[in-house]
């Protein structure tokens, strides 16, 4: 654990989700890198990852300083010893972090912090307003069950699903609402029976899905060119498509939503620890947090960002992004065998991985 921050090493490399670290290249207004580089002399290089698994793989491989890990990756990183404890005393802005996040279990193990929160948000249901006309969807059933959409055509071939095993949790959450007899308590803690039901649901979904999405930009292409009209998605795509004047909107349906809460974590062998600490501090600046939450359509880790007017975000914007729905969102966590249902009662993540590949392969 670092005890003091020294001179910057001149660079810092970060593994991040698409759209997380912007330097004005996609849109000029959204730039929270250039000034940091000028101020600290730390040149930022970003490696975009598309799934949590990829993030873990990249961190296992090494060569990076920081990662914006979601809850389903962070504990794996900690367990694997890929990330190091963060000395929050060296991060003055820690105090401004949303209290709901400060000790969140996905980055705090035995009271030790393994990172600073970055952003959180729901996995929304994105849909095409032309296809749904006056009847916006209210349930995830549009992506799970075959039906005729308001434009008179079937949803078959016109919906997408996330190309990551964590999508099983979305199915579980859907079942939690529609099949209470399964007694699912958490979509990340499924016993064999519950797990099987979720997979069955996903097999039904397989017939509806033309292609799964794992890249935000390819998903946007598919909405534009492939006639896709509904899919689980991130606020990021919704915002970007709307800014392009596409007929796109999103909702959090009645079943609720899974979501992600991301943490900036530091590699155990980070080559540029000083710059990394400088970035972690910078990442909590309220103007960055504010712009980021506008840009990505999610919620800042620093509450002041919604209100202090230093960035683009407003209190209404935060509310619209679901700032108050924190408790309703079931954040991505890594499924483990030892769960609330008992030792070894739940299906662990590695089975999620192979079974989901099977489902996509039509098995």
């Amino acid at each position, binding site marked *: 654990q670092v005890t003091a921050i020294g001179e910057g090493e001149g660079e810092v*490399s970060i593994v991040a989700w698409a759209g997380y670290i912007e330097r004005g*290249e996609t849109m000029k207004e959204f730039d929270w890198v250039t000034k940091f580089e000028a101020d600290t002399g730390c040149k930022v290089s970003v*490696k975009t990852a598309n799934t949590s698994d990829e993030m873990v793989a990249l961190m296992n491989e090494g060569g990076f300083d920081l990662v914006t890990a979601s809850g389903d990756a962070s504990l794996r990183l900690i367990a694997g010893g890929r990330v190091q404890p963060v000395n929050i005393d060296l991060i003055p802005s820690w105090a401004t972090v949303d209290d709901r996040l400060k000790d969140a279990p996905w980055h705090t193990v035995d009271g030790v912090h393994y990172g600073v929160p970055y952003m959180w948000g729901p996995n929304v249901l994105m849909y095409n307003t032309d296809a749904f006309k006056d009847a916006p969807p209210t349930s995830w059933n549009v992506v799970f069950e075959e039906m005729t959409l308001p434009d008179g055509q079937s949803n078959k071939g016109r919906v997408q699903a996330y190309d990551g095993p964590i999508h099983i949790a979305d199915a579980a959450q859907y079942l939690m609402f529609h099949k209470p007899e399964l007694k699912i308590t958490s979509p990340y803690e499924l016993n064999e029976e519950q797990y099987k039901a979720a997979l069955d649901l996903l097999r039904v979904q397989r017939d509806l899905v033309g292609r799964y999405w794992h890249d935000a*930009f*390819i998903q946007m292409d598919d909405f534009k060119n492939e006639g896709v009209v509904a899919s689980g998605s991130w606020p990021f795509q919704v915002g970007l498509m709307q800014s392009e004047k596409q007929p796109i909107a999103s909702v959090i349906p009645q079943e609720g939503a899974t979501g992600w809460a991301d943490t900036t974590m530091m590699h155990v062998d980070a080559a540029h620890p000083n710059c990394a600490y400088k970035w972690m501090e910078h990442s909590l600046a309220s103007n960055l947090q504010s712009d980021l939450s506008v840009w990505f359509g999610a919620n800042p880790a620093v509450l002041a960002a919604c209100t202090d007017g230093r960035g683009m975000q407003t209190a209404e914007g935060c509310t619209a992004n679901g700032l108050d729905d924190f408790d309703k969102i079931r954040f991505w966590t890594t499924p483990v065998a030892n769960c609330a249902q008992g030792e070894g009662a739940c299906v662990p993540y590695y089975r999620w991985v192979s079974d989901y590949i099977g489902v996509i392969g039509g098995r």
Partner: protein
Amino acid sequence: MRSDANPNRASLGLKLAAIGGLLFLHLPILLIFLYAFTTEERTYAFPPPGLTTEWFAAAWNRPDIWQALWLSLKVASVATFLAMILGTLVSAAMAQARFFGREQISLLIVLPIALPGVITGISLRSAFGMMDIPFSTWTIILGHATFCIVIVYNNAVARFRRLSGGVLEASADLGANAFQTFWHVLLPNLGTALLAGGMLAFALSFDEVIVTTFTAGQQATLPIWMLEELIRPRQRPVTNVVAILVFLATILPILAAYYLTRSGSETAGAGK
């Protein structure tokens, strides 16, 4: 005349199939050209809403393109150079004599192109990993040179075969030592085949993406840049502009390779 009567005339069906096949090969390329001029920057709507040449200027002003281009040029040049040396040596040996293990060696040479690129890539990467070799320009070159050897080899060995031991023996017979024979007879005769092989190897390395993704680490060669760019577009038509420029730049070497090997039996460019 009955169609059977003249065996030197192609039947209409064959002609149509051949020309149709060629068109099939070129349709997507026309599309690439078209979309270099579209005014729509984020999607490829068809037909394009309007045409513009602004993307050429935009491409010119993108430093990341220049970096990627420079890296690609560097990698392709060095890999081609290495492959030419190694390929020539092995073709000289293979043309010269029958020896024990000759068959195995010929198998070994084609292996890098006969095995899928993903295999070459992942095995190189795991070897780098095991030996703690950090990614660098050299790791990319290492991969590229490996599969370029066979391209040079294919060209050179065909020429060696055509060169029949004859002229080399004639040179020695007339009093030349091995070095004089190499310089005055072998090199001039092998030259065009090597050049052709080299150019094809260069073009191959320049467009390689499968192996490169495994051996490049965080470096971006031009194809890797394109991959990033195609998936996460900022200015999509710029990618097409780059593709066109590369395309135009490769026509010349390909034409040259064609004319250099025309008289020979080399299948210029077979093998990737």
